[in-house]
């Protein structure tokens, strides 16, 4: 576009950076990485007050804006307008298309589930609501959880089944990607494409932003080559040039990010799902408690009836005595 050629800088507006990532929102990170891959100079600004907007991330150049909820997303719009198209060679390869579709559907769902429903919500709170006043943050958080559950089709009845399904699909996707990647640096044709941007964004988010108890994270850690891929590309594209792009916050300064976790000390202790065992134990406990209470009740009744009988006898006897006394 003429504006870009004239040297006007792009500005990318995303959500806040934390967990050692340039932006911690899973929808914004792929766009950031894509622009990095394309080696376009751009500024980053943050929007800290609109967590429920589907317009973010957006890219501005001059008086033109490319929103994420138009024309298939920011990356697609940038490709369509020929600003930067990394996929010109690979977009015809069916395997590339299907791999990308798998990443964009199964893995995106898995991240959405893990972020809002599967984990305790601390990551989501930090990324989206830490700069909003507390009452607003809380309301929007619950609203978002409800929306995600509706989107993923999760109800009280099928919650466990859906969770299994989501994790199973994620594991399948990781397997396929790991096999596809092998020992290469990129997935296709040894150069970065939008598929790499999307998966790299997903992987970095899962590794850094999700808590250590996350099941999804542990599944990803099972594939060493994927983890290596993520860390290498992060070091090359994301961390190295972070000094060249200027960042400016919108509305308030983002809080300082957590210290980075290196790849050598990945820890993972996923919360094993003890729910089923718990329910077994609970049932046993309840049964035993019931038996206990019933026996106690029977014992008390027996005691009362026996004691009551003897008491009556004594009372009558005493009455008789009294009567005699009175007389």
């Amino acid at each position, binding site marked *: 576009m003429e504006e870009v050629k004239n040297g006007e800088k792009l500005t990318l507006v995303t959500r806040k950076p934390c967990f050692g990532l340039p932006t911690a929102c899973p929808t914004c990170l792929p766009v950031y990485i894509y622009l990095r891959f394309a080696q376009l100079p751009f500024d980053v600004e943050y929007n800290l007050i609109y967590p429920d907007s589907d317009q973010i991330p957006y890219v501005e150049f001059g*008086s033109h804006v490319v929103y994420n909820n*138009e024309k298939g997303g920011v990356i697609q719009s940038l490709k369509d307008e020929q600003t930067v198209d990394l996929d010109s060679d690979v977009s015809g390869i069916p395997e590339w298309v299907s791999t990308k579709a798998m990443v964009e559907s199964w893995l995106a769902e898995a991240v959405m589930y893990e972020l809002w429903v599967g984990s305790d919500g601390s990551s989501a709170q930090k990324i989206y609501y830490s700069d909003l006043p507390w*009452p*607003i943050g809380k309301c929007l958080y619950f609203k978002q959880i409800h929306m995600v559950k509706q989107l993923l089709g999760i109800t009280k009845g099928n919650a466990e089944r859906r969770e299994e399904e989501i994790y199973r699909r994620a594991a399948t996707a990781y397997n396929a990607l790991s096999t596809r990647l092998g020992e290469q640096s990129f997935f296709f044709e040894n150069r970065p494409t939008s598929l790499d941007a999307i998966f790299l964004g997903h992987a970095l988010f899962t590794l850094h932003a999700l808590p250590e108890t996350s099941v999804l994270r542990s599944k990803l850690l099972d594939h060493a080559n994927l983890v290596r891929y993520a860390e290498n590309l992060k070091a090359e594209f994301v961390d190295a040039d972070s000094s060249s792009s200027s960042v400016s916050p919108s509305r308030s300064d983002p809080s300082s990010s957590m210290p980075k976790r290196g790849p050598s000390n990945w820890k993972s202790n996923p919360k094993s799902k003890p729910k089923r065992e718990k329910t077994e134990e609970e049932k046993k406990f309840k049964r035993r408690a019931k038996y206990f209470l019933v026996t106690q009740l029977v014992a008390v009744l027996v005691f009362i009836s026996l004691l009551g009988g003897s008491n009556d006898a004594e009372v009558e006897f005493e009455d008789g005595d009294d009567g005699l006394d009175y007389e």
Partner: protein
Amino acid sequence: MAASFEDNSTGQPKDDALKSTAPARTEPEEDNDNDDDDSQEEDDDDEEEEEDDDEDEQPPLTRQARMQSDRAKMEALFRRLSTERVPVRVHDVLIKGNAKTKDSLIEAEVEALKTATTVQELLQAAGIANARLQRLEIFDSVNITLDSGPPELPGTANVVVEVVEAKNPLSGDFGIFSKPEARSWSLEGSVKLKNLFGYGDLWDGSLAYGWDQTSEISAGLSLPRFKGLMTPLMARISLLSQDWSKFSSYKERALGFSLGLLSSRNHDLSYNLSWRTLSDPSQISSRTVRRQLGHGLLSTLKYTFKVDRRNSPLRPTQGYAFVSTSQLGGLVPDYRSLRFLRQEFDLRYAFPLGLLNAALNFGISSGVVFPWGNGFLNRPSYLPERFFLGGNSSPVCTLGGPTSILGFKSRGLGPAEPRRQVGENSTTESADASSEMDFLGGDFAVTGFADLSFDIPLKVFRDAGIHGHAFACTGSLTSLTENSYREFSLTKFKESFRHSAGFGIIVPTKLFRMEVNYCYILKKHEHDRGKTGVQFSFSSPL
């Protein structure tokens, strides 16, 4: 048994002074009095009791003689009341007729009666108490009767307050109102529930639709007296939605709670807590508006000081008015809520010219808004809290800060920014260039006007209240935040003023007040939306 006053001046027996014409005391009198003139009642009541005794003690007089003596006594009493202070002490206040309303509420309103020391003071206090009780809006009728006190205590009086509570606690309303917070008039329908718990509480729910695409649904409670507080307490919860898409490309939604803490003639203090969301569904906003889209929590304290000595709020011909409004936002300790300071001043002056009921009105209004807190010099001010000039509201009648310059459209002047460019029309030349600009408002606003109003010399118009006026307006809007204050200079400020002048006719009707003006724009800036021509404007009739 006579409830006699302590009186040593006259030789007459005190009983005689209080007796008045017996037939004068009839049922209609007591009902019609409206408590402006209680003396008759007082005499009548005293006289009624005395009458019985008198009839026992004295031989029956002829009817004619009785009437004459009563009239003489009445005249003597009036003479006494008008010439000297007649001391009296209030012994007891009896309240009757309140099944639901709490005694404490009524007693609080008639408090002043207990401290009256003379009959004249008592009558005056009774009148005031009656008006206050009626103003509570929960009674159908109020009657205050002054009676003689117990016979063993001379010089005392009893006050009997009889109220008739409103039979139907529910009432509905529909009309055109103008609210001080909203800058224009609105069509409003409301439902009121009176006195649900007996504390004089007024519950109301209302639905309003305003001229500037505002819609609001709200519910409120008003308590005249809450546990000994002197001023009425008002609480209101509302959901407000405003559509500024045409002017500034955003929509505003606010869920708010406001508490009126202090409300007297000159002072008003209120607290407001609201959750505001700015959104842009059309996705064509300019850069500055884009940066402000999102959620915000406003916790503000607003204080208004008002002195209005003009003889009429709609067509002032004499007097002055001064209003100062201060707003402090960001009172919760949470640093993430919106922090700003807003100050407005209004000054109005009117003086009559004598001929044709003409009057010259001058006015100047100014306002400034600025954020505070960390990094406040670089932060922009909150968009909905900025000042926007433009619109058709008459500057003579509105006292709500700098808002209008006749001739310019709503939000039609001031700092503006181009909207998002859509598609390939990258050329800036288009037929309606100004419609592609977002008006962002300013942090510092000043408006001034001079208005000459006069009666049209035709009896028909004069009787209907239709009058004409000629006016000249000026105003300026500049931004100071985000380091723009460094570029502020007097020459630039002088150049930023826009001017307009014109004349018109004002037609006040029962439903609304209509103005038809011809405005001529004398000076405007490139992107301002102002047009020379005829304009209509409607405002509330009150």
